[in-house]
Every structure is written in structure tokens, then in C-alpha cells.
């Protein structure tokens, strides 16, 4: 993985040193150690971004404003206004709650034949020159 911090340290330390490390949301187990796996650095930021978008208001205890309202927007008409609203919500939640991601660009791709939207988010992270991208599916579950 190419990033700023690895350029400034030697390779053996770079291999062990992490800037960010998080647990996987699916709580996957490492096949060898049987321990919980670690989600590192850029992947950790991507997981965080996805978590924020997929969190509804009032879902996290005592933090009613943490999250986005995109789930509710999936029940609106599939038109340009709704897509714009989804985009605004994603911008807002990342700006307010994910300080590691900047230069955010959100694309909401219509996937109406499957009653869904594909969300593509591009952003920069402070320790990498590369633009990062994460994509996921927004689909009504009822």
C-alpha cells in the first residue's frame, strides 16, 4: 500500500506500524489465529464511511443526530430530487463525523430495475496521495 507515512519509515517498521485499526463489522475470524481480524488504515476509513451512511438517526444510544437519513429516502420517489437529497445527506454525515476523509465526491447511481441505488464515494485521506473509492448498494429491505 502506498502512502505518505510508509515513505518516511523503514520497511520492517512500516509493515508492523498502523495508523488506523478497527474491528470488522462482520466480526470475521482470522483463519490461522482464530482471533478477530483487523481492518487497517484506508480500509478502516472506508468501513467508517460506510457505517456512518448506513446508520439511522436515533440508532446509536444518546447520540440522536449521529447518522444519515438515507434509509428513509429510499422510500421516496425515484427522481432527481431524491438522488440529490441522498447525496446531500452523505456529504453532511461524512463532513460532520469523519474527519479523516476530505474532498468527498458522491455519486448516486440509479439502479431502479433492482429498486436500489448504487453509492459511489470518492475521497482523500490525509496519509495517502491516492484518491480512495468505496462503493456500496442501498436497497430497501422491506
Amino acid at each position: 500500500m502506498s502512502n505518505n507515512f510508509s515513505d518516511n519509515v523503514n520497511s520492517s517498521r512500516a509493515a508492523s506500524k498502523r495508523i488506523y485499526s478497527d474491528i470488522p463489522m462482520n466480526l470475521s475470524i482470522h483463519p490461522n489465529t482464530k482471533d478477530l481480524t483487523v481492518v487497517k488504515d484506508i480500509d478502516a476509513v472506508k468501513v467508517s464511511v460506510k457505517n456512518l451512511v448506513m446508520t439511522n438517526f436515533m440508532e446509536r444510544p444518546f447520540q440522536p443526530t449521529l447518522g444519515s437519513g438515507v434509509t428513509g429516502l429510499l422510500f421516496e420517489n425515484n427522481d432527481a430530487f431524491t438522488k440529490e437529497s441522498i447525496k446531500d445527506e452523505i456529504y453532511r454525515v461524512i463532513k460532520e463525523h469523519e474527519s479523516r476523509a476530505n474532498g468527498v465526491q458522491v455519486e448516486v447511481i440509479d439502479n431502479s430495475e433492482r429498486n436500489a441505488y448504487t453509492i459511489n464515494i470518492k475521497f482523500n485521506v490525509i496519509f495517502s496521495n491516492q484518491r480512495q473509492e468505496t462503493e456500496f448498494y442501498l436497497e430497501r429491505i422491506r
Partner: protein
Amino acid sequence: MATQFNVTELDFDKIKESLITHFKSLPNSKYEDYDFEGSGLNTLIDILAYNTHYNAIHAHTAINESFLDSAQLRQNVVARAKLLSYIPKSILSPYCLLDIVIPGSANDEASAFTIPALSKVTSKIDGKTFSFITIDDHEATLDANNEYVFSGVKFYEGVLKSQRFIVREHSQSNQQYILKDRTADISTLKVKLFDNDNTNNYNVYSRFTSFSSLEATSNIYFISETSDGNHQIEFGNNVYGKEPLGQNIIELEYISTSGDAANNATVFTWATSGITPKSITLNTKSTGGAQRESIESVRFNAPLTYIAQERGVTVDDYMALINRDYEAANIISVWGGEDNVPPRYGEVFVAVKPHNAETLSSSQKLELKNLLKAKNVASTSTTIVDPEYTYLYFEIIFKYNSNQTTLNKSEIQTQVKDTLRTFNLEELEKFNVVFRHSNLLSKIDLTDISIISSLARVYAYKKLDLDAVKNISTTFPFNFQLDGEVDQVDSILTSDVFKQNGFNVRIGDEKLNSDERRIYTYRLDSQRNEIKVDPNIGTLTPLTGEINFTPIFSDTRPIIKLYTSPSSNDLIAKRNTLLQIDADKTIVVADKDTVSISGPAGANDYITYNRQD
């Protein structure tokens, strides 16, 4: 180095912060994204913190609810009080006493007439009709005027209701007898036990009060308040009290009442068919009605009752016993004879203000005296005295900024009067209380945001019943130093107008000696000069506020008010004195605060007011 958890935190945010600080301090931690709100780790910490918060609040609440002092739910306060053998008072039915005359005849076969139990009268209060019933038979004999005269017949407000239970065969069935009626006045509860459903003969069970006379065959029942506010009746186990047998019928008979809503009824209409009274005269208006005992009252009374242990020894014992056993009492003051003025050793003085009346009737006093007689320490006696009311009224002048309120002048003045009434209710409706002038001013200032400052000139009056002092000398204590000098020219006292020898007179006073002033009555002539009518009706000691009246004659015998001004702005209500604020007599003046409205330019128009008029 790892930091310790702060286990005293209750707040979710603080717990979360503590957890994050702890994890951050761990060396070589595998996961580090605690700080980012979107991270999985942060979500996990949310759950941990929420769980800790939940458990902490649960433990905190459970501990609080386990103690009488801190419990908030009524059911828990009642449960804690039950451990101290205290049963909270239920809703209470007000009762009135009526004098009833039934016309008779010399030819009547029987020489006695009975007003049976459940005879009914009705009365209207605020447009709502209330029924009052007798619960006992009342009998009178024919008098010389061929009339049956019933004096002081007791009518309770409400309707008589009953609930029946069949006792199951097995005593192990944990059968509960719950009186499911929150309007039930438990003081009127009658528990009847029938052998079976086919008989009208029954035994009356009485409420358990003391172990001293309790035997295995005693017909007693135990009562307690249930968690839902109803009452549960329990019977003995053939060791302490008799246990009912299977197929016995238990009947609970009680008065279902409206409580304090039916207090103060004065006009009654006969509503019992078959009897036509010649007259119904009010003896005592309806009093004693009250809602069920409040949580705070239970919290206060339960430990006192426990300490008293069924005996009247200390002042607190008397207060606890009266509070528990004498439903008519609203507020109580008790003091030993050694603290009385003048001292009367061997006596205990009790002053009771009943619900919605100023004093107890003579029958109520007798009832209370008999109640205490059984609990008194030998060689002491109880004297029931009436509360002595001292009424306070004021001249209140307050400055307000009209730019800070949408209320007009008279609306703010009305609000200040309401503040006075609330202050009276919250601060003064008790014995041995201090009227604190500065506290009143603070409340007035807080009445509305526009009120900048306030001034209250304090005055006081007491009521003097001229009928009571027509033949006897009377001591009439104000119990505070009066504002004025012994040798001043102006009177310290004044009064309402009453008639002497056909003249409209008032009370005045003048210097008598170095300590006292002589009290006299005077009228005004056409030039408004004072002409004495009765030059000596007693003496006044300004230093103590004590007045000694000689018998005062008057053409009519009204209750007049005797006005004065206390030398101190703060007053204390000792022994049987009750301080009451007369908001209606109080003058409230609102004055615009020119400095607040116009700034320094308003200083020229600013008016200040003297401490005394």
C-alpha cells in the same frame, strides 16, 4: 500505563469517555480507532457504555427506592412505611353535624323516634350536589314541645358500598382480599364475617391496633395499602387473631367519598323518604374531607409514629399519634406546659388546625382529647387549644420595567397578589414557622421578569370576638413587639368600627405608665376630634404585644379586627399561633422604573418610597 475506570460515573457520555481513555492507555493495542464515530470500535464502545449506564441507573434507582428517605414511587414509600407499622391515611370523607327537629305528637305510641342509619341529606357546592349519610341510628325522645330534637347528628359525605368475598377452603391458597376502590374511606370500613352465604348473622372484625390485647381468638383484621393504591385486608392465623374458615363470607362495607371536594357544605336538604323534619339547622359545616395521604406526608409521619410506640411522651410522640389517628387534623402544634406562657406544669398543650376550617368544633376537641387520654403518660393531662390566627397584610410597592413585559400594570399587580397567596400556602400554613420578610420580597421580585425591586410594609391584625369579651377580662397576645413608643401621641392600635351607646366607635390607646398604654374607645365629633366613649377597656404593653382587655360592652356583638404594625419585619409563629397572609386586604402598587426604562435620563423622574407610610 493503563488508567483506571471511573466507576462512579452514571452519565453515558462520561462512561464512554472513561472507556476510551482506558483503551487508549493500553500499550500495544491491536485496535485503535476509538475516536472516530463511524468506526466499528466506537459502535462497540457505545454498546458497552450504554450497558454500563443502564446497569448503573438500575442499581442507583433500586437503592434509592429501598429507603424511605429517597424512594420516589408511592408503592415503595408505602412499603418502607409498612415496615414501621405505618398505614397511610386513605381518602377521607368529610362530615357535618346537623341539628334536626322531627315533629311529634302527644299521641305517639312510642316515646322515642329513630333516624335510621343511611338517612340522607344533600348539599350543593360549586354547582355540584353531594350526598351525606348517617352510618349509625340516632334516637331522641319526645320533648315538652311534642318534638323529637336530634342534636349533632353526624352525616358523612358519600355513598355506602360493600364488596364480598367467599373464603376458599384451603388456607394455603394465598387468597387475597383487596378492596378495589380508591374512593374508599378506610376509617369508615366495617369488616363483617358471615358463617356462610345462607345466614344474616355476622361477626364484626375490628382493625388491629396493638398487640396488648391480641389473642388467637381475637376478631381482628390487618390492613395495608397495595402497590396499586388499593387496600388489602388480611386476617389472623389462629395465633395472632382468628382465621376465617372455608365458605365464610367476608363483607367489606365502607363509604365511597369525594374527599375534600365536599368540604365546607353549609346548606343541606333532607333527602330521606318517610321522614319529614320540621327543621334542619347547621351545627358544624362539613369538614375533615381529604385526599389520600401524600408521599411526603407518609415519609414524615412513618418514622415519628414508630418512635412514638403508641405512647404520648415527647412532643413528637403526640404529633405522630395525632397525625396517624386523628383524620381531621391538618396541621398540629404540641408543646409542654413548661413552655407555655404562663407555665402550667403537668399539662400538654395541643393546637390543631382542621382541614378547611379554622378551629375544631367542641365535639372534635372532645374526640381528640379522648383519643390522647389512652396514650398519655400518667399524671399528665392534655389541653386542646384553638389556633391563634394572626393575619398579615402589606403595602407592596414594586418597580417594574414596562419594556420587558407584555402584561399591563393591573395584570402584574394581580400576579403579585397570587404570589402572596402561594407564599402563604407554601411557607406559612404550619405552626412554629417564621415569616421571613426578605424571602417574600425575593418571591415578589421573581413573580415576573419585569419586576426590578420591591418594598413591603408589614401590618398585622387579629380578630376579636366582642361577644366573648362582654363579661370577662381577656388576654389578647399579639406575640410580637409592636411598632411604636410607650409615650407616643398617636395610637398604636386601631380597630374596625363597632357600636357603643349608639355611637360608632373605634379602639385607641394612650400612655399609661413607663411600660403600658391604656386602651379606650372613641368616636369622632363633627370636627373629627376624638371623644372618648369608654376611657378604659384595658392595657397594652407594646414591648410584648400583650393586651389585657377588661369586659367590653357593645351594642352589637360582632367580630372586629384589631390592627397594628409589628416593630420587626420578620415574625415568628410560636406555640398555637398561625400566621396567615390576607392577600385581599393587601395593597399592591406597581410603579414604572424610570431608570431601567430610560437609562440615566430617567433618574430625575425616579420616585423612592419610605420604609413606613
